[in-house]
């Protein structure tokens, strides 16, 4: 039996203050029973002598100070885990919502986890072929990486994430693979898109979903990614599976964080987000990687919509400082009808260098991608210039670069939703495009590579 407190002193936003308590610990979980016998859950944010500040996940609507009973459970929030979770759907607090049977837990895990000892980490270097050229060729994803998709409202980030989840594989290996999907504050339709896509492809059998929809309690979202990551850690490091975690939409998560911070009247940082948002995001994002001696791995693809497509907004900004690169979607490319509209220039994969090269992808990969980057960047610059001055003011070489940039977008970046290109196809495509440029301009690739891979003539389709 837990002691029940009737001493709620004040309620503000998602927070309640309980007084005259005894022996309460920081981070403990609390249950609040309303007069209607409805039970809500919360977490202790601060203890000051006998006063306890509790943050409610389901909101404070309908609560009053006189009739609410508060019980403290003496432990943090835990997720019951079991191998049977695959194929199941849970709410944002880990309760089944697919009308299936209750999970018989193998064990219960604290959802906050513990940081991985940096010394125990194994460096991610296994190339994941996503079948998307703009990722595989230019901003390569490796196992154990966290690579967010930074997008904007109305851009096809969900399509892309689903395509990656569908096509991702490590070459030459058949391994146990699972997807953990956490939805935070997305709409029913968006969630439904993922669920039906997983069903259509049969992927649902090896997927665990945690769903907090837009109309679910906002504060619940604070726990949702932690639930998902705890589940992922269980499958990766105890069940030896390679887990791909998709977190969408981190912007809603951060807004929930801001809501609590505002309710606590904390000194706000940039744009009202709390000063500790970096640390808070890091405790989620850093739960990716590989551990020495363990078979499994966690690869994270968080999705976030940048308010006003602004990369310097605190959410994408802090995310970019924690994650190992980013895939940025461009509205301009999207308008041109290019799918996936990945803007390769500001996109980046920090772990690429270790995942590519001979034995992993191909010996020319590093240099050809560097060359494509340089040439495309120059082509784009020249296109802007041509807008101001007109094509006539450009030299012959400049015009070649412009043509290259156009073809690069249309042939290399552009591909079908179900088109799964092998890494060889992607790289050869890159070499084909380079035939559009004079050989003297190809400074980033070595002569031997030109000899070996550059087609001798321009392909007719270019």
């Amino acid at each position, binding site marked *: 039996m837990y002691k029940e407190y009737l001493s709620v002193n004040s309620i503000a936003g998602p927070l309640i203050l309980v007084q005259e308590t005894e*022996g309460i*610990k*920081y981070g*403990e979980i609390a249950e609040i029973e309303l007069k209607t016998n409805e039970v809500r859950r919360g977490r202790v944010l*601060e*203890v*000051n*002598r*006998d006063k306890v500040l509790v943050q409610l996940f389901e909101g404070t609507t309908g609560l009053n100070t006189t009739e609410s009973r508060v019980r403290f459970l003496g432990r*943090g929030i835990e997720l019951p885990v079991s191998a049977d979770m695959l194929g199941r759907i849970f709410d944002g607090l880990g309760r089944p919502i697919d009308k299936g049977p209750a999970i018989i837990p193998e064990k219960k895990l604290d959802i*906050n*986890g*513990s*940081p*991985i*000892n*940096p*010394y*125990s*980490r*194994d*460096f991610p270097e296994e190339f994941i072929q996503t079948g998307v050229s703009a990722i595989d060729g230019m901003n390569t994803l490796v196992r154990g*990486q966290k690579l967010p998709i930074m997008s904007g409202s109305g851009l096809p980030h969900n399509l892309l994430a689903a395509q990656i989840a569908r096509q991702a594989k490590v070459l030459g290996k058949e391994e146990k693979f699972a997807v953990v999907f956490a939805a935070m504050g997305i709409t029913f339709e968006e969630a439904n898109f993922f669920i039906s896509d997983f069903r259509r492809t049969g992927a649902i059998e090896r997927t665990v979903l945690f769903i907090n929809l837009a109309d679910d309690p906002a504060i619940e979202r604070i726990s949702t990614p932690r639930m998902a990551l705890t589940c992922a850690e269980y499958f990766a*490091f105890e069940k030896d599976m390679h887990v791909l975690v998709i977190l969408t939409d981190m912007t809603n998560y951060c807004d929930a964080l801001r809501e609590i911070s505002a309710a606590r009247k*904390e*000194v706000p*940082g*940039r744009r009202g987000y709390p*000063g*500790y948002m*970096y*640390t808070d995001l890091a405790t989620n*994002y*850093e739960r990716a*990687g590989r*551990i020495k001696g*363990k078979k499994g791995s966690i690869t994270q693809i968080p999705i976030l919509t940048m308010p006003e497509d602004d990369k*310097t907004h*605190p959410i994408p900004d*802090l995310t970019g*400082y*924690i994650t*190992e690169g*980013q895939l940025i979607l461009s509205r301009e490319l999207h308008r041109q009808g290019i799918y996936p509209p990945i803007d390769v220039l*500001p996109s980046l994969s*920090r*772990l690429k260098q*270790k995942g590519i090269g001979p034995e992993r992808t191909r010996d020319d990969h*590093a240099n050809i991608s*560097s060359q494509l*980057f*340089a040439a495309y*960047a*120059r082509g784009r610059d020249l296109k802007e210039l041509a807008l*101001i*001055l007109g094509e006539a*003011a450009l*030299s012959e070489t400049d015009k070649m670069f412009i043509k290259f940039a156009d073809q690069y977008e249309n042939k290399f970046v552009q591909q079908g939703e179900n088109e799964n290109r092998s890494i060889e196809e992607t790289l050869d495509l890159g070499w084909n495009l380079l035939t559009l440029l004079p050989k*003297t301009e190809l400074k980033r690739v*070595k002569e031997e590579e030109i000899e070996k891979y550059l087609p001798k003539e321009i392909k007719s389709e270019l």
Partner: protein
Amino acid sequence: MVEGKIIRVAGPLVVAENMLNVRMYDVVKVSEKKLIGEVIELKEDKASIQVYEETSGIGPGEPVYPTGQPLSVELGPGLISSIYDGVQRPLDLIRLLSGDLVTRGVDLPGIERKKKWYFKPLLKKGAKVITGDILGTVQETTLIVHKIMVPPGIAGEISKISEGEFTVEEPIAEIKLTDNGKRLTVTMLQKWPVRIPRPYKEKLPPDEPLITGQRVVDTFFPVTKGGTACIPGPFGSGKTVVQHQLSKWADAEIIVFVGCGERGNEMADVLLEFPELKDPHTGEPLIKRTVLIANTSNMPVAAREASVYTGITIAEYFRDMGYKVALMADSTSRWAEALREISGRLEEMPGEEGYPAYLATRIAEFYERSGKTVCLGSDTRIGTLSVIGAVSPPGGDLSDPVVQATLRMVKVFWSLEDKLAYMRHFPAISWLRSYSLYLENISNYLAKTVSADFLPLRSEAMKILQEEATLEEIVRLVGIESLSPKERLTLETAKSIREDFLHQFAFDPQDTYTSLKKQYLLLKIIIFLHHQCLKALDAGINFRELANLKVREKIARMKFNPEEKLEHFDQLEEEIKKGIGELKNV
């Protein structure tokens, strides 16, 4: 000591009462879990404590045990090749003890107690010693001779000193103190509080470059041994790669790398790579001269605050032995944010952007611990400590308080630009915005060791790059055709400087490190071609033909030219002359 009692817990901040007997910045152990914390505020009998570990499950009523000691690091043989967390707990041993995750309350000494080291005395019984004198040495790694120094504040006569195998806690010598005649036992293990700079005799102006093998750094914006530099830039602009490159190739004897609030996978990269990579100067694995401090972004925030101090104290200790030390901190912004977070919990009045008002003071104190110093002791050995800090301003905005406070302190500014990074021009150090205030200091050194015309060459290259920026504005407005042939040649040369000199592949085995000599030759050949072309233009040769010279392609590949075959540069000069000569004949 009397124990206190917790009354408040809010994240990493714990307030305890009945703490009259503790002093500011003393270390305390919080609750029965013995979490490490540091006193950061005292009000009557209440102490605010920042706790270096996760505080979940801690509540009012639990005890707080004072240790009576300030936060200190342990110094002695065994530091090199170690990997520590922010409060000097060895992560490799923690892994053995508690598995792959960092659990709480692990208490392990920073220096291994059981290992025996062979101590070789340099002084004999009866010798008079003062603070800083070297009693003897221990061969710590194949690269590093660890010098055991007389601890600070001690002067007297050696009454006993012994050679042989000892653990760090066993006495190696005894000193009869001059003040009171008492005998003091000396061990190899010493402690020093991290927040207090270690003393030295005198500071000197730094006058020798820290050679990093990175062309844009060494030639254009050099830093000195004992100097300070900062690398601000938005995410994805390559701060970490630059820091890694510097810690790999810089010609310092000891590298202290502080990963402060950064990515776990990147630390793993360093940990796996450093034992493999060979130091270009000695051929030994890099790890044998490196101390790593890893406090990744998901590790407790308060320990992040401590990690830079832990790092710099260890670095100072090696400086005191007379070594050339370089400290890399990646990233100081995370340290500043930790300060901000703690300050917020203390409900202090915020300064700019919510940072505490003392931010600038703290940053200044940190960078001032660098320098070229005459070390304590009877000999006049000189040690240097260079400090290179990465800064991660939000949105890459240089008006960020951390950047501004740092820029007031450091002498070298490597400004990373995302536009360059997008073109995969690495290192993405902007040649227009960066600066180094050390050129004057090191001009003698460069003239002596490389060539007298090194700096003039650099100035000329800089001028060409500056001109390029102006000319590009014009091109943007009225098109390239409006430029004179000479101006177009300037653009061509600037492009060559950018692509063939400044751009450097960190991942190419040849290009990743360039010696000063080769840097000089490379720049010289580019400028030589420029001059030859200028002459040719005067002689009435068409610009297009000069721009299409075959030899340009060869220059572009010169950075991949092996260090052993520098004579190729002379041949190239001949080729240039020949190539241009042929044009004249047409």
